[in-house]
């Protein structure tokens, strides 16, 4: 699924300020709708929406989230297209 996801992000880099200290509230709320679309797309492609998460760039929280996500993905097992 690397290609479609890369394509989804390519036209505007989805980096933005942390929601608590957003510099421009009008412009920076781009990640939320895009993340929502990616979850929907994963569902439409028949993949687990849990494969994608959004994180704030805070070291410790990010590390915690990655560990949690890795655990969850291990539980999900190989992708459905790979096992077929």
């Amino acid at each position, binding site marked *: 699924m690397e*290609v479609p996801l890369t394509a989804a992000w390519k036209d505007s880099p989805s980096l933005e300020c942390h929601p608590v200290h957003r510099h421009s509230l009008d412009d920076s709320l781009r990640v939320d709708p895009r993340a929502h679309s990616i979850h*929907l797309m994963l569902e*439409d492609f028949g993949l687990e929406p849990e494969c994608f998460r959004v994180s704030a760039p805070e070291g410790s929280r990010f590390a915690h989230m990655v560990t949690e996500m890795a655990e969850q993905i291990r539980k999900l097992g190989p992708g459905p297209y790979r096992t*077929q």
Partner: protein
Amino acid sequence: MAARLAEEWFAICGGCEVTILDIGEPLIDVLKQVEIVHMPVLMDHKLFGQTGEGTEMEIPAADVGLISGGIRSEEHKKLALEMRKKCKILISLGSCACFGGIPALANQYSTEEMLEKVYRDSVTTEKNGLPHEQIPALTDRVYALHEVVKVDAYLPGCPTTPEMVAGALVALIEGKPVPVLASKSVCDECPTKREKKAVSTLKGHLDPPEFKFGAPLSEMRCLMEQGILCLGPATRAGCGGKDGNPRCIRAYMPCEGCFGPLSEKANPMVDMMGALSSIGLDPKQIPDRSATFNRFAGAGRLRPLPRR
């Protein structure tokens, strides 16, 4: 010497053949320079010899071959290979031949599921056995022509435009290459006005857009910004021809995506999701997203969802 033309139709409605007729007056000049050697819709040329004496399907040699329709049965596959063997230049005519078209929407289901639905499950159908006598076997899915044989030129559209067919035929008769397809999107050619204000609700498919009849299209607001789902951002431009303005937009209708994805590798679902989220529309409001975004491009893009 007149150029020899062969035409075949596979899984298709016949609209692209009507387009050839729709070329209008210029068709008279084209026909003077063309000798049609095989065209099931127009002439009674049999595949196994005129009296059925042949053992193999045969098509006469031709300079130009046109094929409309996607490949749905083993017979189509054999005919496509035969056409490729006998035609110097092979052209995919219409969206079904280019990307599978409407019949390729069935690629979302397995052949068994599809047959069960059509012949047994549908409420309006009497439960009967599946047809099996004297008919060719179905292929595992609908294929676009280029997935089975090498194709030299593409004329997409549902139906394709008379201008494009005439342009391609005239170019080939004169020994020139067929004009290449645009690499821009329908939005790049669309004259409507973008106000860049976010919208949140999607209108129903039959809800009319706001426009002033007779006023130039540049005065109408972008249909997507009016909340009408338009496949312009993920669709190849070129349907407007010389006029330039996309055909459906000229009729105040949203783009349906019949000219196919922006490139061979493009994924219309990803392009559309990006476009929708950038104007604030929640794609969750769209029912059956995969089919809607790949309406004409199902061959190689739509497939049954994996079982869990």
